[in-house]
């Protein structure tokens, strides 16, 4: 009964995103402009403080102070007043200050995983009434860039305010940055190069990657951010949500 209830809750809380074709901001290789994204479910909102607290209580090895630093740096849940007490944080605001390892452990315990970059970007490209086109929509871009411009510091509002996108998903933009399972996939073709090319291969490779749409500065910022992360990093404006099989 409990399992059935949990599954039902997941279905309600994680809308189905229909499969389709996605044009990655950074194509995986020259000559491959499109990638196919299979149908998946994605949490309607970022994981909240309240949800993460329940996870930590059920999985004490992920409490602050219990998770080894190789999995979560010293900023892990550092805003909380104790390992299980979020203090002044509201239960409905997105949890932040969690590492990739911690976020992934949460999602796997929930029966899913972190979304891939392609899944996340595909779902995030939906507008209010269409499955794609947000990256080309000036009003959407202006809103995202205004949020990037605010910088960190403001208290986080509760999740699922405002209106959802086409898939019924909230807060893909303008609340927190979000982990993806393959945040470290962007590379940098240095190591598939021919032997004996010039030096500085890693960053030559990176520079040689061609962004699909240089005007899409919002996407660029997300990719730049992801490529700057390491899996144990925690910061106070980086949260996550989970993806599931359809």
């Amino acid at each position, binding site marked *: 009964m409990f399992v059935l209830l949990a599954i039902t809750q997941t279905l309600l809380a994680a809308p189905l995103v229909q499969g389709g074709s996605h044009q990655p901001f950074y194509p995986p290789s020259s000559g491959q402009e499109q990638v196919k994204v299979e149908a998946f479910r994605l949490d309607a909102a970022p994981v909240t403080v309240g949800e993460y607290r329940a996870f930590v209580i059920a999985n004490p090895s992920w409490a602050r*102070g*219990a*998770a080894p630093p190789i999995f979560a740096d010293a*900023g892990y849940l550092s805003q909380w007043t104790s390992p299980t007490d979020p203090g002044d944080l509201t239960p409905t605001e997105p949890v932040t200050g969690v590492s990739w390892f911690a976020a992934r452990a949460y999602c796997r315990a929930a029966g899913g*995983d972190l979304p891939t970059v392609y899944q996340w970007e595909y779902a995030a490209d939906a507008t209010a009434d269409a499955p794609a086109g947000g990256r080309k929509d000036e009003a959407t871009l202006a809103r995202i860039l205004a949020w990037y411009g605010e910088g960190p510091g403001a208290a986080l509002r509760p999740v699922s305010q405002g209106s959802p996108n086409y898939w019924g998903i909230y807060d893909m933009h303008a609340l927190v940055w979000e982990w993806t399972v393959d945040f470290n996939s962007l*590379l940098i*073709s240095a190591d598939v190069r021919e032997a004996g090319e010039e030096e500085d291969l890693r*960053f030559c490779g990176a*520079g040689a990657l061609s962004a699909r749409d240089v005007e899409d500065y919002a996407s660029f910022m997300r990719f730049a951010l992801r490529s700057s992360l390491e899996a144990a990093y925690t910061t*106070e404006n980086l949260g996550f949500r989970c993806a599931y099989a359809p």
Partner: protein
Amino acid sequence: MRLRTLTSVALCLLTSQAMAASGDAPIEPASQASIGPQESLALPGDSIYHLDVDMVDQRGETIALSVYAGKPVLISMFYASCPMACPMLIADVTALEDKLTAEERAGLRVLLVSLDPEADTPEELRGVVERHVIDQSRWRLASPPEPRVRDIAALLGISYQAIEGGELHHSSIITLLDSQGRIIEKLDGLQQSPEPLLQALRALE
């Protein structure tokens, strides 16, 4: 280089607040976490051996990531069907070992973890061992379960992405671990000078 610069900018945006907030936070003692630790070892908090993962090696034996705990280890990731970078990676590790004395070499272990475990069966891994004349008394090539590949890559700072046609783009990083699985030094990229890593290895002994 432009990407790198802007990446730094983005990192600054992201971390400035976190640094301010957590700069003086006490570092709490690490204890063991159920997803990772090898119960029999008292591991330092920054040991990659906290990751509890069973892999299958070229002999078909099931081994832990910490299979070589107790000795310094060179660890990297590769895949057997990789046409260019992985043979170069193995050549780099071999060249590095060639600079060691026989005694130093005898104390060192090498663990190469597959990025493509579904293809890299023990037979495929044995094929690599035979093509490269690898000393199996000190080297293991091993495939983790698919979902754990990215965990290991994340610990080692290795990026990878599947591309069409079955190849993988991946960074080649050779990491030196101390006897407890702590990351001591890295060679980032192929055909790098091994000197920093050799010095770090000799400083361990």
